[in-house]
């Protein structure tokens, strides 16, 4: 098909929107409500272009026709964009000009050259202070991206629009707080928000406070996916592994010990793998479902009560909670520090972990959870030149990990790591190739089969909770299921650097698998420190002590 954009002849494929065609040809059209992979809603009216007959149409929802002539920057288009952006601006004026935040809307007003706004701020909503996610409706521009993500990707329906006209705003049902509804705290709405109206509940100030406190022994642990994404906050290209720099920076922030959640991940695999083998032996409790993702756990507690009843869920805590428990028991004893004086800070790509650390049944060892973004702010707070730091290593014992733990950050990683260990524990034979190709990639649902000493294990991996819903419809066809709430796994979690782009996420995943390849040990049960901790402290997997420290229970919650 031939069309003309800005008087330039362009050939384009059928089925692509005008916006996509423009993007392919290097023409930048501003958008706010448009999200890749989701149906355009055409709410913001900023991506408008002019047709030959002087009509303005939204490029995100219109398709090119043969012989169409489009102008993307005529005076009419510019004026309309400017006015529409101005209408969204009143509440943002102060913040955007003063702080020059890295949000789509703020970038846009600089692009459009808006210097003053003729209208006064009008919105006066209460700020919704959730345990993990904070929503400030006053900053909201009603683009509907968070609603679309919550509905179409996570199928949680925690938030939707209420009221109409300029009273329209995003809210949980009947104006409740996020804490009181079935919100799973995954934080995907934070990632979707183009104006920063939704953000994580900050633990940064509290952490800074305990860092100053000389009496406290502050221990930090870092999640597997942080090392592939933290660099982006310091202008390093996506997919740069910054493990060494990160450890160095955290030491300079004043943390007494820097441990690796990957160790907890290895431990999770030992417990979870053993649990799987136990279920195979007893031939009950299938399918077994992983429990590393706190957003998925909450989702399950809200919507899938039968999984609790049938004991399908693995009873393992998530890796950072396991490590938290060990730090407060094993490490405290070893270092001879009273448990009360140890503060554990987890650095996670996730907002749901913040909620998880407040669960009473976990008797959580983790005191504070920082997201990747908060960590960057923490490092900036101490004026550390992150880019030019030289690499340092994690502190010993609880800092040693294998490649199996490294891939926890990507969707399918937990499954792959568990299969590596379960195979060798069950068969006693060495695995020829440790790479399980079926579990990798960004597909919503991945399935495969593996032979564990005569028993065929059918496994499935889902990422994104809408896909999880699809998968759970036919859960009886599988024996072992991994579910991660965020599309792509922790690597695109709600606490990761903004803005989210698919290319970036692919790069981060590549980096994580690179890390796996780089490490000499790639199976959790080969980790010598894991062996040591079982010998010295825990006994064996699923022993009484590990049941007490490393396992948990689940509770039914209302689906509303």
């Amino acid at each position, binding site marked *: 098909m031939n069309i003309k954009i800005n008087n330039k002849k362009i050939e384009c494929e059928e089925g692509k929107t005008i916006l996509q065609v423009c993007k392919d040809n290097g023409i930048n059209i501003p958008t706010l409500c448009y999200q890749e992979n989701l149906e355009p809603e055409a709410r913001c*009216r900023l991506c408008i272009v002019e047709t030959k007959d002087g*009509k303005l149409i939204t490029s995100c929802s219109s398709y090119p026709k043969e012989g169409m002539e489009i102008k993307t920057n005529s005076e009419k288009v510019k004026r309309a964009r400017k006015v*529409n952006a101005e209408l969204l601006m009143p509440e943002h004026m102060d913040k955007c000009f003063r702080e020059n935040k890295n949000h789509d809307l703020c970038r846009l007003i600089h692009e459009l050259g808006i210097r003053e706004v003729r209208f006064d701020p009008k919105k006066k909503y209460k700020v919704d202070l959730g345990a993990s996610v904070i929503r400030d409706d006053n900053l909201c521009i009603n683009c509907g991206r968070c609603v679309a993500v919550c509905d179409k990707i996570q199928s949680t329906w925690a938030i939707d629009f209420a*009221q109409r006209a300029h009273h329209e705003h995003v809210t949980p049902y009947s104006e409740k707080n996020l804490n009181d509804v079935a919100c799973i705290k995954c934080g995907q709405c934070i990632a979707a928000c183009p104006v920063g109206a939704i953000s994580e509940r900050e633990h940064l100030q509290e952490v800074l406070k305990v860092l100053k406190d000389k009496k406290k022994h502050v221990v930090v642990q870092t999640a597997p996916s942080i090392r592939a994404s933290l660099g982006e906050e310091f202008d390093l290209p996506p997919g740069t592994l910054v493990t060494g720099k990160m450890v160095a920076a955290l030491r300079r922030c004043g943390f007494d010990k820097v441990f690796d959640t990957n160790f907890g991940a290895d431990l999770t695999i030992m417990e979870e793998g053993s649990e799987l083998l136990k279920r195979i032996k007893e031939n009950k409790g299938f399918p077994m479902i992983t429990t590393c993702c706190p957003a998925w756990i909450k989702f399950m507690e809200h919507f899938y009560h039968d999984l609790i009843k049938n004991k399908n869920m693995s009873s393992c805590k998530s890796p950072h909670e396991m490590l938290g428990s060990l730090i407060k028991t094993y490490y405290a004893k070893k270092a001879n520090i009273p448990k009360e004086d140890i503060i554990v800070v987890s650095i996670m790509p996730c907002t749901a972990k913040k909620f998880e650390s407040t669960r009473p049944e976990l008797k959580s060892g983790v005191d504070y959870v920082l997201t990747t973004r908060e960590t960057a702010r923490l490092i900036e707070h101490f004026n550390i030149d992150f880019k030019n730091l030289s690499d340092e290593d994690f502190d010993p014992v609880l800092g040693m990990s294998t490649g199996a733990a490294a891939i926890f950050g990507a969707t399918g990683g937990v499954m792959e790591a568990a299969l590596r260990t379960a195979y060798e524990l069950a068969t006693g034979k060495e695995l020829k190739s440790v790479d399980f190709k079926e579990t990798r990639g960004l597909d919503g649902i991945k399935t495969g089969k593996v032979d564990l000493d005569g028993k065929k294990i059918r496994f499935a991996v889902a990422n994104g909770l809408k896909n999880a819903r699809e998968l759970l419809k036919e859960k009886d066809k599988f024996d072992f299921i991994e579910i991660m709430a965020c599309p792509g796994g922790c690597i695109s979690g709600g606490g990761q650097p903004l803005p989210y782009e698919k290319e970036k996420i692919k790069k981060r995943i590549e980096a994580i698998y690179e890390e796996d390849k780089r490490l000499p040990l790639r199976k959790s049960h080969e980790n010598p420190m894991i062996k040591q901790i079982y010998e010295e402290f825990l006994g064996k997997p699923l022993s009484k002590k590990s049941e007490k420290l490393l396992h948990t229970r689940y509770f039914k919650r209302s689906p509303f």
Partner: protein
Amino acid sequence: MQILRKPLQRAYRKAIKLGSKATIDLIKKKGLSGRGGANFPTGSKWEMVSKEKDSEKYLICNADEGEPGTFKDKFIIEKNPEALIEGILIAAYAIKAKKAFIYLRGEYDYLESKLKKAITKIKNRTGSETPIEIVIGAGAYICGDETAILESIEGKRGQARTKPPFPTVRGLYSKPTVINNVETLANVPLAMLYDDWNKNLRLYSLSGNVTRPGVYELPLGTPLCDLIKLGRPKNPIKAVFFGCFGGCIPHCDIPLHPDAICGKECMLGSCTIIAVDEKQSIVDLVTNIAKFYEFESCGKCTPCREGTYRILNILENISMKNADMKDLDTLKELAEVIKETSFCGLGQTSTNHLLNALKYFRSEFEERVKEKKTRKRTAR
């Protein structure tokens, strides 16, 4: 009046005898066009849907008459519901609809019993088995938009959908759907039955500063003066509003025909005429209409949601004599952008009245603005 003729189920029997294709052809030949405002040929719409291959199809009768100053559909439902129901059954038969809906305006809920009675009566007499369900709206103006009706019947928020796909391809529950106005459907049996049926007769809803407001049946092209004269105004008429969305013009002698009115940058739409005499202030009227849109905007798109609010703010400032000339420019710019970039018909037409008022009655606005300045001076 033509619209009050009683077809007495003869048209339905005729349709059955003709078969669905011939019925559609007959309606096409008679030249019946949509009375909701767009004047789309009814027969063609039916044909589009009947050619779709889906097994399920729906018919919706749009009785969500929310336009201020429009009451012709209410008139039909009150006076001749039998013709309407017969029209629905004929249309449902012609497009092979699985089910027909009547989307009744929330404020018209007292007409539900009347409609139900007519449905039972006509169905008994014709033996038709097409179910007709009455859905009562929740009082949103936007639900008069055909795609918003679909959302509303499906139980979602009443907001317009992206077009294309048009409802004739993917409508209610993603199935091909015909949406027709009450007046259109009530005309179907009459058009089929009577050879002297006049396709140009329209129902005009006349209101405002006239002593005899009401529904008048006149052909298209009737001079505006003649209609106003029928209403017997007490004072000379200054301006005419074509409903809220149609815009306004100074009272003059133009024929009431879509083409002629389009030339004045107005829309005849559903033939609503609100006469305004010299005692009224255009600024106050425009402010009142702006209030209506500020309240009725669905909130989906930026220009309509935020723009209508800002327009009302500025207009109120002008009414309160608290604005300056710069505000008039802002007002015009806002109104134009809302017209150009809004998502659906509501937004696109929500500023017609304002733009025309600024064009034809700018002096009234300027007077208000100046009044403030003189007052300020005296205060000093």
